[in-house]
């Protein structure tokens, strides 16, 4: 019996009324407080509970009612799931199986990453070459000057760095939409609850963790349906580890530069397996961090898991197409505005500089003894390189370089890391802009990055060691100001986003450092 003293008083005050009916009147009065009502006179002996106490009693009553219903059902009804022969039950038996459920989920993930890499490579190459051709056309058509250079070397390469990833992002959202629309995603949530519980998370944490593959911001907002505050806080704190679509451009360009384009077992490409591994590393780190946080955070928790299992259905083309278009559009336009602004600022800072070294770059190069024997193309490259080094951005980059040098990066990558703190996808656009400044050739972003030489060790700047180090840095670092803002809003405190920033970025630096020093 819940609150016997309260209900005894209620019974005494209204002896002629049904107790449950009275209870409904009282609780409905809490929920629909704005309705007109007539106060019954002459019951001065009875005073009802406070609103919060009534809410608590209502929750207890609901639990007791369902416990009663479950007890009756247990005694009177038996369900043999194994005997069910309908399609839904058959599919559920396989898709939520203790072993096959996970195997199938892993196989689906593998198919998604294979599609992201192999299928989208053709439209990507077209876009990359198209962007380079547009830049060249602008340079040759518009009258020469600072504005033409800004468009050809700053804006077009910067934007090219983002639109090139449209096919891959569209594929990712296509698969996620199909899984959600078909009803399979709910089975994944159910399946993962078994694992999640052990790590201090709820099965419902899978939804934010899966949505986190698109963007951490809606994913963190999606934690609102987790009932336990502790589970919700842990999910908010670990969700940024999952690989969001903003990391994808960074991963894709680095993988294509440092991982050989080979087949594994004649079917899978090595590059897509590395990409999948990065997704699994992100997910694994999120889970392990949740486990650690569950033990560290001293917050009391009560937890229960309720989920609706929709029927399986064929995904509606209209819904899937709408989802893919909307998500891709918001990625491109959301990131596009920031990238455009950063590309412009970077180009101006890279094309201007203080002091005589920048102004006299051409004369300084020509004064070198070997200058007369160098071909025109090499001379122009040296002048552009000298100008970039003594530009405003060059000085900023040189100031950052001591911090990023132990990780195998040069000052240009350092600048890209700092600017990508605004949003990770800015990284590729930044490098595309920095490498384009002073370049007169029609080159793709990939070729420009592949052509960068390590000034100390020689050879390509992005080799296996520095590439893996950079991949791991981006896998763990908290490089997103918008995510920090949303964590602040959802937790109503600066404590959690600041901790998130310090711990994630510190961890990323250490892992990247260790990886580079081991692989070099």
């Amino acid at each position, binding site marked *: 019996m819940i609150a016997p003293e309260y209900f005894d008083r209620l019974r005494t005050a209204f002896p002629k009324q049904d107790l449950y009916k009275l209870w409904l009147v009282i609780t409905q009065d809490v929920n629909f407080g704005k309705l007109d009502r007539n106060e019954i006179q002459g019951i001065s002996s009875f005073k009802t509970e406070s609103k*919060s106490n009534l*809410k608590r009693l209502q929750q207890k009553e609901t639990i007791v009612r369902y416990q009663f219903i479950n007890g009756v059902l247990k005694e009177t009804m038996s369900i043999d799931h194994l005997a069910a022969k309908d399609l839904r039950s058959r599919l559920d038996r396989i898709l939520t199986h203790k072993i096959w459920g996970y195997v199938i989920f892993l196989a689906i993930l593998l198919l998604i990453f294979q599609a992201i890499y192999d299928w989208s490579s053709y439209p990507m190459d077209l876009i990359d070459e198209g962007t380079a051709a547009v830049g060249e056309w602008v340079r040759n058509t518009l*009258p020469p*000057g*600072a*504005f*033409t250079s*800004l468009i050809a070397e700053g804006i077009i390469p910067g934007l090219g760095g983002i639109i090139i990833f449209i096919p891959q992002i569209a594929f990712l959202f296509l698969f996620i939409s199909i899984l959600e629309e078909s009803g399979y995603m709910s089975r994944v949530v159910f399946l993962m609850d078994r694992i999640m519980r052990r790590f201090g998370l709820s099965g419902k944490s899978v939804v934010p963790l899966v949505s986190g593959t698109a963007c951490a911001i809606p994913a963190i907002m999606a934690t*609102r*349906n987790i*009932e*336990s*505050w502790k589970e919700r806080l842990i999910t908010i704190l670990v969700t940024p580890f999952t690989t969001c679509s903003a990391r994808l451009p960074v991963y894709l360009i680095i993988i294509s530069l440092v991982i050989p384009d080979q087949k594994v077992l004649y079917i899978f490409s090595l590059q897509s397996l590395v990409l999948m591994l990065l997704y699994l590393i992100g997910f694994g780190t999120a889970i392990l961090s949740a486990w650690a946080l569950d033990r560290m955070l001293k917050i009391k928790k009560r937890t229960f898991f309720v989920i609706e299992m929709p029927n399986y259905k064929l995904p509606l083309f209209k819904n899937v197409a709408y989802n893919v278009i909307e998500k891709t559009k918001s990625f491109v336009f959301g990131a596009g*505005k*920031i990238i*455009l*602004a*950063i590309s*412009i*600022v970077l180009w*101006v800072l890279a094309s201007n500089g203080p002091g005589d070294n920048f102004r006299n770059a051409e004369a300084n190069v020509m004064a070198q003894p070997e200058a007369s024997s160098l071909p025109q193309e090499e001379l122009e490259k040296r002048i552009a390189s000298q100008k970039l080094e003594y530009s405003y951005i060059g000085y900023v980059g040189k100031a950052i370089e001591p911090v990023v040098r132990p990780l195998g990066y040069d000052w240009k990558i350092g600048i890209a890391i700092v600017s990508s703190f*605004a949003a990770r996808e800015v990284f590729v656009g930044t490098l595309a802009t920095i490498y384009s400044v002073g370049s007169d050739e029609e080159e793709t972003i990939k070729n420009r990055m592949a052509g960068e030489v390590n000034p100390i060790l020689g050879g390509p700047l992005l080799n296996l060691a520095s590439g893996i180090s950079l991949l791991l840095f981006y896998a763990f670092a908290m490089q997103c*100001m918008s995510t920090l*803002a949303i964590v*602040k*809003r*959802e*937790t*109503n405190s600066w404590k959690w986003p600041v901790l998130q920033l310090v711990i994630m970025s510190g961890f990323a630096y250490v892992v990247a450092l260790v990886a580079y020093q081991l692989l070099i």
Partner: protein
Amino acid sequence: MIQNILVILIFLVALGYLVTKYVWKPAFLSGKSNDKSCGSDNCGCH
């Protein structure tokens, strides 16, 4: 000359956009949405 003026104008607009988005709004406008955030009880989501 015109090209230089255009570059300066575009640079200022871009810089203004970034400062508004990442410095001005988070520093001065973020507090206004706090009342919508989810606390630890009685907000309907716990």
